[in-house]
């Protein structure tokens, strides 16, 4: 008899007691036609993770990128800001961006207070970031970093002329599918940034959360696009395939404030219209919720010959070089206050060690009148070790232009310190001007307590922090003729070969007079024979 054996499988359900800390991800795109001939697109990807940044091990993460978490944990980083930018943000005609970024690369970080050797961690952090972001951030070290007192806490600023796009990969879903490298480099200005900081979990601020903002800012030129009538396909190569499944919110905002003067029609019409009153400034936005199917937005301008009056923002700045020749030069930072009231600003300059500045030549003039700085911090640089750090607190009178000028010397570097393209020149980083504005005109920045574009709607505050970054400068240091040693060797060898041979010949030969012997052979034989016979 055959027994049917019934096997009972005991399935042990492993009751996972792993309570997962909640994390949220939002993706937003802000499209804003600028007053002039450009259109601004800002992608904001925000991850908020309800964990304590001080105790989190970053061994497990869901949405938060673990690769970044590991770096942050390892180097004891409290707050990290990285931006890689190509092109220059034109404050005077474009207003303020959502997140400001200096041309080139900029890294600034705050380390936790228990960090033993900040300089060492700083160098290693930069190295790790260079691996993560495929940018030459490993050139960041103490010889080109400063720790400002007012502008922000530990910050290092490096300037690399190019931003590498190799980490921009497409093919993902959600708004990120709009990021196609060919369309990113087709712009007047492009900037990718990463901001990591601890934030309050709620209003009571009993516990902390970790917030990561990743942003991409692009400014397209209508001339490059060929038309003013923009669409997602024209800007990014394709429409949005669908929303990101992981995102709790997936939204596109189109700034329609300028529509009153330059009216354009959006198709399809926005799902919602948001009116934001911020610091006395009213703006309207068309809001699209990205559906789980294909979305394409296009705008069509009405034929009109109206010219928009560009009103520059309250504070903007520029920087340029003065002087001529290869001996002395000067740096001038011009600050423009368009506001009707005084503005207190902090000017931070990180000047490389190969541009030795003289503090006694520092002159601050407002419309030709001397303007005494309120506070001044200066740490002279040391060659090959430390840059020149200059931080000035200034009061800018209303409707004024202020010039901060300082002189420097051109120095020779050691032969090996010149880069391969030495005649290209050397970069001086941008000056950073920080201030609190009372008006939010032209201001699209996120509030300090906010992390998404939605947070900036109706976010009236007592002041609006702006940081204006000026342009980079390129100076040509006295560059030796690198082929000169080769030429000298060639010339010297030729001269030696030509001169040494005959000279050696002349000086080492003994010159002896020898009587001339004209005797014929027959006579000589005859003489020798007679001499022999005589014996």
């Amino acid at each position, binding site marked *: 008899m055959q027994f049917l054996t019934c096997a009972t499988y005991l399935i042990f359900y492993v009751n996972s007691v792993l309570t997962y800390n909640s994390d949220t991800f939002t993706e937003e795109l802000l499209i804003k036609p600028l007053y002039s001939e450009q259109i601004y697109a800002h992608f904001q990807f925000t991850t908020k993770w309800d964990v304590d940044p001080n105790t989190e091990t970053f061994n497990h993460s869901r949405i938060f990128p673990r690769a970044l978490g590991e770096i942050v944990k390892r180097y004891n980083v409290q707050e990290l800001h990285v931006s890689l930018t*190509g092109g220059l943000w034109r404050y005077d005609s474009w207003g303020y961006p959502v997140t400001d970024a200096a041309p080139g690369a900029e890294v600034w970080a705050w380390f936790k207070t228990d960090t033993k050797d900040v300089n060492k961690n700083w160098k290693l952090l930069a*190295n790790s970031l260079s691996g993560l972001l*495929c940018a030459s951030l490993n050139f960041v070290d103490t010889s080109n970093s400063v720790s400002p007192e007012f502008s922000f806490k530990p910050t290092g600023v490096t300037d690399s002329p190019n931003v*590498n796009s190799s980490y921009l*990969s497409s*093919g993902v879903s959600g708004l990120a599918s709009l990021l196609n*490298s060919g369309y990113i*480099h087709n712009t007047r200005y492009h900037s990718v940034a990463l901001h990591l900081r601890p934030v309050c979990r709620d209003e009571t601020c009993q516990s902390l959360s970790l917030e990561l903002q990743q942003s991409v800012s692009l400014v397209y030129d209508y001339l490059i696009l060929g038309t003013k009538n923009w669409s997602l396909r024209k800007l990014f190569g394709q429409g949005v395939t669908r929303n990101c499944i992981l995102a709790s919110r997936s939204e596109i905002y189109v700034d329609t404030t300028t529509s009153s003067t330059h009216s354009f029609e959006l198709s399809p019409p926005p799902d919602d219209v948001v009116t934001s009153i911020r610091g006395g400034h009213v703006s309207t936005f068309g809001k699209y919720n990205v559906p789980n199917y294909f979305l394409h937005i296009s705008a069509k301008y009405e034929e009109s010959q109206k010219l928009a009056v560009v009103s520059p923002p309250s504070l903007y700045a520029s920087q340029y070089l003065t002087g001529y020749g290869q001996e002395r030069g000067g740096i001038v930072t011009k600050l423009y206050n368009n506001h009707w009231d005084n503005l207190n600003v902090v000017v931070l300059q990180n000047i490389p060690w190969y541009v030795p500045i003289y503090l006694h030549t520092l002159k601050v003039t407002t419309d030709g009148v001397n303007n005494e700085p309120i506070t001044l911090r200066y740490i002279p640089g040391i060659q090959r070790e430390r840059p020149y750090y200059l931080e000035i607190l200034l009061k800018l009178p209303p409707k004024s232009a202020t010039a901060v000028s300082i002189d420097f010397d051109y120095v020779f570097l050691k032969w090996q310190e010149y880069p391969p393209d030495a005649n290209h020149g050397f970069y001086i980083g941008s000056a950073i001007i920080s201030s609190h504005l009372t008006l939010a005109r032209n201001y699209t920045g996120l509030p300090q307590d906010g992390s998404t574009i939605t947070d900036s709607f109706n976010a009236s505050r007592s002041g609006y922090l702006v940081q204006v970054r000026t342009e980079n400068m390129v100076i040509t240091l006295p560059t030796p003729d690198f082929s000169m040693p080769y030429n000298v060797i060639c010339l010297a060898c030729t001269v030696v070969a030509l001169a040494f041979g005959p000279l050696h010949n002349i000086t080492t030969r003994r010159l002896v007079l020898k009587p001339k012997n004209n005797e014929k052979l027959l006579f000589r034989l005859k003489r020798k024979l007679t001499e022999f016979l005589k014996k």
Partner: protein
Amino acid sequence: MIADDMACNPRNPRPATVFNNANQHINVYGDDVEVDYRGYEVTVENFVRLLTGRLPPGTPRSKQLLTDEGSNVLVYLTGHGGDGFLKFQDSEEITSQEMADALEQMWQKQRYHETFFMIDTCQAASMYERFYSPNILAVGSSLVGEDSLSHHVDPAIGVYIIDRYTYYALDFLENVDPQSNKSMGEFLQVCPKSVCISTVGVRRDLFRRNPDHVPITDFLVQ
């Protein structure tokens, strides 16, 4: 390692792309390109350090050659060169002896199992003549005394865009996928003198296997 950022140069009329052909057939700078050493980082010192693994502390993993005695390594070099050297940037050059010593050091440190060395430069064969380490298969675009020539000019950017050997090698490799059963021997036949103008040089004596029996996927696979 790319010294020049041609793709993202603002003067590139076709942003973020580098094509193999004036007719824009293949974008060799696709979205999956990862440049680990760029610009001023591309130096002979960094290249030798990368090969030999003698890197400064704190070097991220993506900037290391994490290979061991089981790894097959492909080294592809291109640029301006001459008899016994290849230029790096506009200021320095790696000599054939340095290259040979670096590979020997790799062998002694068990950093490779087999190496396939490709070089596309003038007098390319001079770069591998000094190799003395085992398990290296080397191919150069020209013999000593020969110039390596470029394929064609792109009038839109006004420069010669690709070298002949690289052009035909790329042409061959475009048809290679992970399931391919082509052999290294076939790849070594690429670019005969009739199209290359220079003679493609091959060095087989250090390599212990017969290249005709080595699948190309041992070295070149996506």
